[in-house]
Structures are given as C-alpha cells and as structure tokens.
C-alpha cells in the first residue's frame, strides 16, 4: 500500500552534514518533497518533508532515521489551533496556500485540516486573535 506522510525531522548537530534524505530515496525508495528546511544557530537541523512510498518502505525508513538519532514528529502535531482563541471569522482562509482552512456549512465555522498544512506559518500573523501556533 502506498502512503504519504508529512513529517518534521529534527537533526542533532552531528548529523547536519550527513546526506540523510539521499538514503531515504536510495535505500528505502521513498519520494520526498521538502516543505521547509533550516539550521538553527546551535547547528541543529529542522526538515519538514512530505514522504511517499510503500508503507513497509516508509516504516523501515523511519526506523533508519530513529536509529541514527533523528527526531520524528508528524507535522499535524506541530501546527495547532488554539480553539479558545479562534473566533471562526475566516481571515485565514484566503491566506493559506494549501487550502487547509475551509468554511463548514451551514454553521459557517472555520475548519482546520492539519493534514493539508505545510507549516509555512503564513496564517499566524494575519489571524486577528492569533489563534494559530507553529511549534517545532
């Protein structure tokens, strides 16, 4: 079965210069799409990837990453809507490049579909009550 997952990878300092994504492709036959990449001032790496491939390959790939010391989280655990602050206005809807926010009808409440989110952060500041949080 083919699956597709958005994951956030945290690289410790020692791994920042290693060709890890290359191994995911070459050894585990996974397709990747880089959504975000950065190296912090402490030289730790952050990589947000969309990975697709056979489920067994994906699982083995994840085992490989865990084994060499890369921290893995699903992207949906990193982008959070503060439900008490959200007023369901809709300011986020046209800002989001991946249409992760949709208007639910007939209630006209704003839905956030975390699985569509690419953690770009564009919604954070245009949200008047500042309900969106990205935590890496």
């Amino acid at each position, binding site marked *: 079965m083919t699956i597709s997952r958005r994951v956030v990878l945290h690289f410790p300092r020692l791994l920042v210069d290693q060709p890890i994504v290359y191994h995911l492709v070459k050894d585990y036959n996974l397709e990747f799409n880089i959504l975000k990449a950065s190296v912090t001032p402490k030289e730790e790496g952050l990589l947000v990837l969309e990975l697709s491939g056979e489920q067994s390959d994906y699982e083995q790939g994840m085992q490989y990453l865990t084994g060499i010391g890369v921290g893995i989280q699903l992207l949906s655990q990193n982008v959070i809507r503060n439900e*008490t*602050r959200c*007023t*369901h*206005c*809709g*300011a*986020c*809807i*046209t*800002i989001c490049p991946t249409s992760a926010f949709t*208007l639910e009808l007939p*209630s*006209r*409440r*704003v839905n956030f579909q975390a699985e569509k989110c690419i953690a770009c952060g564009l919604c954070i*500041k*245009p949200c*008047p*009550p*500042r309900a969106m949080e990205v935590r890496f």
Partner: protein
Amino acid sequence: MGKTIAEINERIGKGQAVVVTAEEVIEIAADKGIKEAAREIDVVTTGTFGPMCSSGAYLNLGHSKPRIKFGGGSVYLNEVPAYTGFAAVDIFIGATALPDNDPQNKIHPGDFNYGGGHVIEELVAGKDVRLVAIAHGTDCYPRKKLETLLNIKDLNEAVLFNIRNAYQNYNVAVNLSDRTIYTYMGVLKPNLGNANYSTAGQLSPLFNDPWYKTIGIGTKIFLGGGVGYVAWQGTQHNPAVLRGDNGVPRRPAGALAVIGDLKQMKPQWLVGTSMFGYGCNITVGIGVPIPILSEEILRYTAVRDEDILAPIVDYAEAYPQRQPDILGEASYAQLKSGKIMVREKEVPTVSLSSYAKAAEIAQTLKEWIKRGEFLLTEPVAPLPGVEAGITFKSLEEHPI
C-alpha cells in the same frame, strides 16, 4: 394589528413570548407570510461579532493610601497607556492603545501583539493587570508613583463604553496594486488576490431595523456576553446614504454607541485582536432584540443576505487617498458564497466578523428572552434618521 413593548414584556414575563433569530424569521416570513409572522412573533434577535476599533472601558481604580492623583499624570496597564484626563482615579483604556515601546510599523508590517483590547480581555477574564502610574503630587494627593497589581473585582467601576460599534454596512476591501497591503480590513493580496468584508449580513442589528424604528437610545442589548444599552448614535452615524428599495443602506451608514458593566461580561465575547501591519483592536459581541411592533417591522427583520449590497473598495489607492470611487457592489449572499467578480476576475472572499459567533449571540439572546431573564426597554429617544439632515464631514485642512 400592532403590539407595544409593554405587551411584549408581559408575554416575556409569563414565558409566553415567541422569540426567533434574524435567521429563523426569514423562513417563517416566507412560509407564513408577513402578516401571520408579525402576529405570531414578538421579538427577533440579531447578533454581530467583529473587530470594533472605537471601543474602550473606563475604570475607577479606588484611592490608594496615601492618595495619588492619576488625573493629568501617566497610567499604564500592562504597559499600555490609559487616558487620565479625568478626576483623581478615573481612567479610560482604549482598544487600539499600544505600549510606548511597541515597534509599531517601524519594520513593516508590524505585529501589534498586545494593546488596549488585550488589556480589556484580560481584565474581563479576571486576570491581574499590572498598573504603573506617575503623578505630579499635590498637597491633597501627595503620592507621585504607584506600582501594583489590579483585578477587575477590586475596582469600583469597570464600564465598557464603545463610541462606534455595530456599523450598518461596511466596505468590501480589495487591493488593486501589485504588492500585499496590510489594512484594518486584514491582509489584502495584490492584484485582487482576495476580498475581505466584515458584517453578519442578515443577522446584523442595523440591517434588521434599517430606519432605526425600534433601536434607539436606551435600548437594552447583549454586549460582550453581558447586558448593555445603546447610549447614543455611534460616531460617524450617517443615515442619509444611498439605500435600496428595502430601505437597507448600500454604503456604511448608521452606527451605535453602547455601554455596559464590564464586570458582567465574558472574555469569550470581548477578544483582544491584532491586525497585522495595522494595530491592535478588540472583537466585540453585540446582540440587539427587535420588538415586532408591526408588520412593517417584521418585514425589515426578514431581510436576506441577497437583498443587502455592500460597496467594493480598493484599499491600495482609493481608500487611503479618500477617493469616492467604488469598483462595484456585491450582495452578502455573493460574499458568503466564497467568491465575487471584480473587474471580470473571480476573487475569493472571507469575512473578518464571525457569522458563526453572530448566530450564537442571536441564539443566546433569544434564550435569555424566552427564559424571562431579559426584558425589552422602550427607547428614551430615537437615533437620528434621514430627516435629521446629518451630513458626513471630512477633515478639511485650514492653514494656521
């Protein structure tokens, strides 16, 4: 037919009043006709929940020992400056006030993370707020400096007093330029990238009473989750604008000044907000009950989104330069569909006011009235109508 507010209140008191929301009344009027609907229904409840800049609260802080006179001095609440030009311990905190050290738009667009609206929300939530005050000191008020935590429960008065809320209609904001702009109508993407509007349409109070026939000074309302009153017409109240055949203004028109006890309100309905690149604000919940005194009043409350038109305005050039040009009009039904046509381009639309929350306010007010907890008031004076001859003035500069 014809009912009086006293008769409606009697029915509310007995738990017999028929109360529906401004959404529900549309279907009832369509099913049963205006005449029958007007006979059956006693009250229609409206609601709106959007950013309303001209909002603030006055507080009486009580007297410290020894005494200090804040009047004419400086007072900060969580670093946000309050207005002190009153007697010794009365202050006013406005929703758009910013800390003195806020970077504002020095690096554009500024974040505007915390301002007066957030202070009001925290007060209402029962959180302690940090007061720092500097005064000049007098024989009767010797103290010159005071730093303390304040809690709303320890204040003599905390009163929300908003001088312009619940605007009757508002612009649909778009951007014709080739760069993103940051406005009080939200972030507007270049080349007609999006269109932002801000009203609850068919649920909005003044769309349901377009000629101000029931809403007047003294009208009791839902305000910020508590009870408030219409204090006056809102600033910039401008009844004599272009109107549709149904009487509904097609341009920004009337507005309400409202007042109520902040201690009774809830943070859920007074939310401090940040307009990216623009400033701080507060999102206010207001619900106004409309007594169905006649068939005419019922007909007004049955107004539908498709019958309400709003002007589309370019916020890159026309608005800032005070040019009167509009790019067309859109109905609230079109705006709520998620896209409108502007200059032959399909433009995605969103609202800055929450329709879902406006509906919740109308529903809450309906429940209060049905349970007999909320009686209607007779206005003590009407709001100025078209006949008042109000002309909307701009600031024309005169050399000094």
